[in-house]
């Protein structure tokens, strides 16, 4: 056996093992009854006890911000135990104006627990906004919703129950993209969220290494402040804070109940999707580079962190590998056992496809949706192109990270879509401390 044969065999086995591992993480929620029960929301609620500060960071969200504020203040929880802080960069006058209109409207109806916070100093990004909000937070627990989110009305009751019953300092509740049939790639994008929040997050929680999501995450305020808030330099501050919390051995409770998920939507265009995915990938690579994960207490935690944060690199290799193996299949005469080995990663791709197809029905059934006959066919045909998109975004992220291109890529928002893509310019970012200067703070009261 030549060295290239050995490398090919080793590479194939490694990729197959990673795909199998990845598949097992996707199916973790379905593994046993205990996982199933644990992921569900409690069936009864405790009386409201904890107070919540809801952070609503927004930028250029004129189209949706008023609805979001309405939904947040409508949450079924005593208003005196809820503080809503809308955080906006001072230059975003359009959104500020809409917010002020809404707050005035609410005040006129006696709803006064929502406030607007603005900030003008750089960097203008989401973690900066969150840190600004954290400074003003009065609730026992701080949470985040994004501008296009649709949180469940009982989400605070549910979290109050979990946190008091289980003394959980951190709760991550499910976030779910819903519009699975809008675009050719929507179903697969939706399923990624489905498998991530419903399944894989629980595994991360069990191991004690959780890259938190960007919203519907509930953290004790004092704990957040002790942690020094969010890293304003980081493109995925959510994952970063999750790992830093895990570093401190803080238990993170994950709950995905199909009913209580926060509903979001897929990016509207391929372009948007790629930019979003590039940013996440690059964010993971940043967190990897920061090395906080090396301080995780146990080896399984560190290995899982390494595996998770390396996923952009793995994805990049996964994109190239099938092309190599197909090329070798047709143009290089390999010993048959080796040829079978090189086929294994392709086999795993088929298994991922089967899991996705079944997942589609699990998802639609959980949310009371009825997929059309074409949905699985569409998924079938979009599967490989979607892997291509993921691969392209991964390669792009690796390329940008290697070239030091950390700047935010401006994207167009056209309405009810995810708005975590706050404009960032971390090339001039400050050290990761909480930026406390409050500029142009406006407090609007009715």
């Amino acid at each position, binding site marked *: 056996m030549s060295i290239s044969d050995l490398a090919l065999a080793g590479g194939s086995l490694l990729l197959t093992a990673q795909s199998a591992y990845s598949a097992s993480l996707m199916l973790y929620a*379905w593994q*046993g*009854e205990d996982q199933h029960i644990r992921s569900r929301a409690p069936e009864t609620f405790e009386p409201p006890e904890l107070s919540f500060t809801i952070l609503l960071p927004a930028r250029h969200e004129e189209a949706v911000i008023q609805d979001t504020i309405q939904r947040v203040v409508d949450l079924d929880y005593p208003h005196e135990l809820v503080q809503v802080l809308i955080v906006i960069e001072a230059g975003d006058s359009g959104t500020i104006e809409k917010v002020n209109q809404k707050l005035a409207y609410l005040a006129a109806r006696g709803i006064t627990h929502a406030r607007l916070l603005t900030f003008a100093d750089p960097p203008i990004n989401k973690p900066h906004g969150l840190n600004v909000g954290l400074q003003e937070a009065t609730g026992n627990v701080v949470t985040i919703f994004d501008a296009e989110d649709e949180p469940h009305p009982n989400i605070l009751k549910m979290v109050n129950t979990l946190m008091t019953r289980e003394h959980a300092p951190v709760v991550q509740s499910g976030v779910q993209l819903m519009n699975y049939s809008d675009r050719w790639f929507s179903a697969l994008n939706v399923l990624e969220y489905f498998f991530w929040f419903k399944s894989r997050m629980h595994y991360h929680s069990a191991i004690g290494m959780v890259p938190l999501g960007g919203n519907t995450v509930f953290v004790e305020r004092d704990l957040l402040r002790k942690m020094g808030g969010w890293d304003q330099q980081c493109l995925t501050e959510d994952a970063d804070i999750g790992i830093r919390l895990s570093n401190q051995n803080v238990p993170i409770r994950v709950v995905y109940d199909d009913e209580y998920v926060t509903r979001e939507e897929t990016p509207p265009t391929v372009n948007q999707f790629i930019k979003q995915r590039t940013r996440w990938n690059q964010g993971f690579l940043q967190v990897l580079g920061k090395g906080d994960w090396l301080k995780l207490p146990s080896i399984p935690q560190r290995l899982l962190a390494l595996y998770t944060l390396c996923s952009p690199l793995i994805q990049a290799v996964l994109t190239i590998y099938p092309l190599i193996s197909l090329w070798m299949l047709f143009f290089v005469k390999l010993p048959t056992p080796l040829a079978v080995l090189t086929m294994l990663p392709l086999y795993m791709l*088929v*298994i991922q496809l089967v899991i996705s197809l*079944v997942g589609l029905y*699990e998802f639609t059934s959980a949310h009371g949706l009825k997929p059309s006959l074409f949905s699985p066919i569409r998924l079938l045909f979009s599967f490989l192109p979607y892997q291509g998109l993921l691969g392209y975004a991964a390669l792009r992220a690796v390329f940008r990270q290697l070239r030091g291109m950390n700047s935010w890529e401006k994207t167009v928002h056209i309405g009810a879509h995810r708005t975590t893509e706050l404009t960032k310019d971390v090339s001039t970012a400050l050290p990761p401390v909480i930026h406390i200067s409050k500029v142009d703070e406006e407090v609007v009261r009715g």
Partner: protein
Amino acid sequence: MADSTRTQRTPVLVDGKALSARTWSILSGIGLEVYVVLALGIVALVAHGFNMFNYPAYTLLDDEGIYTGQAWAVLTQHRLAPFTFIYETPPVGWIILAAWMGLTGGLHTFGGSIDSGRVLMLILHLGMIPMVYGIARKLGCNVAAAACATLLFSLSPLALFYQRFVLVDTVMLFLALLSLDLLLDGWGRLSRVVFSGVCFGLAILSKESAVALLPGMVFIAIQQRWRHQGRFAFIGWVTPMLVVVSLYPMYAFLKGELFPTFDVPLGNLSPTRVSLMNTLFWEYLREGGGLLNYSNQFWELVRNDWFKRDALLLAGGAVAALINLRRGISSRQAMAVALLSIGPLLYLARGGMVLNYQILLAIPFLCLSLAAVFSVVLEKLPKPAMVASTLTVVVAIGLGYWSSGNLQPLFSEYPVVAGRTSTAWIKENISPESRIITRDDMWTDLRAEGMDGPAFPYVYTHWKVSSDPAVRDDVFKQDWHNVDYLITSPNIEKEFIASKNTVALEALKNAHLVKQWKSEPGTQGLHNQQIVELWKVDKVGVTETETLKNSGKYIENNFSQQGAFASSDGSVTALSQSNALLRAVWSNDRAGFNRTWAWTKQNLQNPQGLLYWLRQNDIITDAHTATHADNNTALALLLGSKLWNDPELAAAGTRMVKAIWNTEVLTIKGKPYQVAGDWAATGQGQILAINPSYFAPYAFRIFKDVDPTHNWQAVIDAGYDLLFNASKAPLGYTLSAGLPPDWIGLNRYTGELSALQLTDKTDTTRYGFDAPRVYFNIALDLRWSGDGRAKTYLQQAGFLKDEVGRLLQDGVTRKGLVSAIYKHDGSVVIEQPNLVGSAGAMAALLTLDPGAANTIYSSQVIGQVGHNSKGLYFGDQQDLIAQEWGWFATGLYANRLTDFWHNTTGVQPVKTGIESQGGRK
């Protein structure tokens, strides 16, 4: 499916109650069931393990050898099969066997390669014990019924007999039961469902007959869904199973061997190309008659094999399966058991080709079926009656098996002996360079190095010789002449004919039996008596080259000391020295020749240049000469002088020839006769002692060249006359069998022949230890000179021909050999053959009846060889004469006794004994 899944919290088949039946809990928990399973395991270990290397015989079934051979190929050649892989059976079973052999240190850790496989079978069987028990419990059987099922699985003579064989069917069963056990997991872990699917996929890839279990497995996979597994439950079983199974066609595809070749009609195998689909169609489109055809192979086996071994399991299990099917309308557990039992039975009964061991597939499920019914019966009884009933049933079944007599042979008979001893003998005594066509069961141990023997790289199974172009055309070139040996069993010709194996058939027609090994016949008629035969093809080849080389080595190592060849009592005769000199010339061993001649010259040569007969303890104890020793020595010197172009040897030889004439040739009535020695020539009596076996016309033809002053041609003529007359004369008997006598008396005045009276009063007219050499000498003379008298004389050896072909008392078997000593009238004096007699008879019959000659050569020369660290020996290791005549017989047969005097081109090209029977004109 989806809705029902989400409404059920736990699956139908195994619920919370069954959790206590989990294998895990059995192994880790405490309680009665742990001890039950342990006890069952011990029973299985003893029942399966005791005498398992000896019974059944591995010569009974080709498949054991096929699978171990393929495991060997995986292990050592990193290929799926040693020859062209034709996808007859998927490979996982023997890959696991190869892994087992690799992990345990090779093929021969436990004896033969099949023994190693049988240990794995034992381990698999032991592994199946907790699984059968656990599955029975999970499918609703109570402890007693589950234990009975497991006991039956271990003790049924049918199960025991076939489970001991090294078969991929057992690997398949282990994987299928593991899959079933995992699927019936009481916890509802999805990972176990996935692993179960993988195991079932591997089971199918171990033996495709596992598909017969698929209806039952799918039924269980659907019934056994847990709510939390959602839609992944069934998919999680089916997908991994299919993925694993698909690796097989994928392998074929990547090798370009998946699709039909289309060069033959569907259902046939292409003679030139391999295709997975061709093989599948071939296997499943074979005519066989269908379920209701009572003469198909299934019913044939039911009647003649399976029922005879265990009617209870087969008939009872089938009835129980039907009862469970009926119960299955209301009980899904019963339905699962029924489907698992009926599937294999239908698969076997479908028609087409069914092999006896394929019943393995049904056995555990028939046990389960019986247990399920038994459990229902027991549940209806009060507890004390339950215990009593169980014990009664167990004892009754045990006694039933014992009294049927089907169980005892498994523990007391040794039918393996024939296979084991024949393999050992062949490994020890046959040249590894030989091209051998063998049975499957012996292939691996011959092909692989080990078991105190070398690897035989040119050993092929007869199936491959018939069907694999890479063997039939490339190795044997469709010509039987390329075969050296066949390892067969009686009736194998039928298989050769059925598989149109012309190479093997022709080779067998032109072969003679070297050895036959027989096991004791079985007492119960449960299998045929095991017989293994080794046949040598009638041609000269590697056997002769190796035999001559290694025999020479042995004689040198065992008898020679600085050029003296002493027999076991320490005596050195002139004859042993002269024979050594001849061997050295014919072997072109100059150093050996010089050593021997130097010693002989110094220690045995008398002043006339002839040799004293005997030297013992450094003293000449018989100072007379013996003519044949002098003839041989002179011949060796003259041949050596030509071969090595050495005038000194020529001079020594010439001097000796002249001394022979002067001392040992007497002229009687105008004819020069060579008498037995100087003592015979100088005696004062009127009868001269002549030993016809000293007559060496081939040598005299050379003597006359170096000693033209004497009439050596006249010695040849007188010798032939005497030989014909002595053989024909009754010599005191009423008639002569035509055999030459050991001795003859010649009246020095009248020239008349008479029986010679020696002082020890032995019968000198018999055909004893001397006379057979006459035929050897005459055959060599025919070879060298083509003298018509030689041919005529040899053709008069009809007595020997008749002896070889003589029917023994059983009226069937032929004698196949010649006895050691006959009286002059042909009556036997000593029955047991010896090497001199066999060499002489072979020499005689090479002309008269080559077939009979080959019979003797194969069985009495090659068949008598043994090996030790010193080399190859014939018969008695300490008998120098036997070694000499084994060597000369082989040399004559292989035409390696070259006349270097007249043929100076060096070593002659090889000719077979048969081809050269006409001799050189």
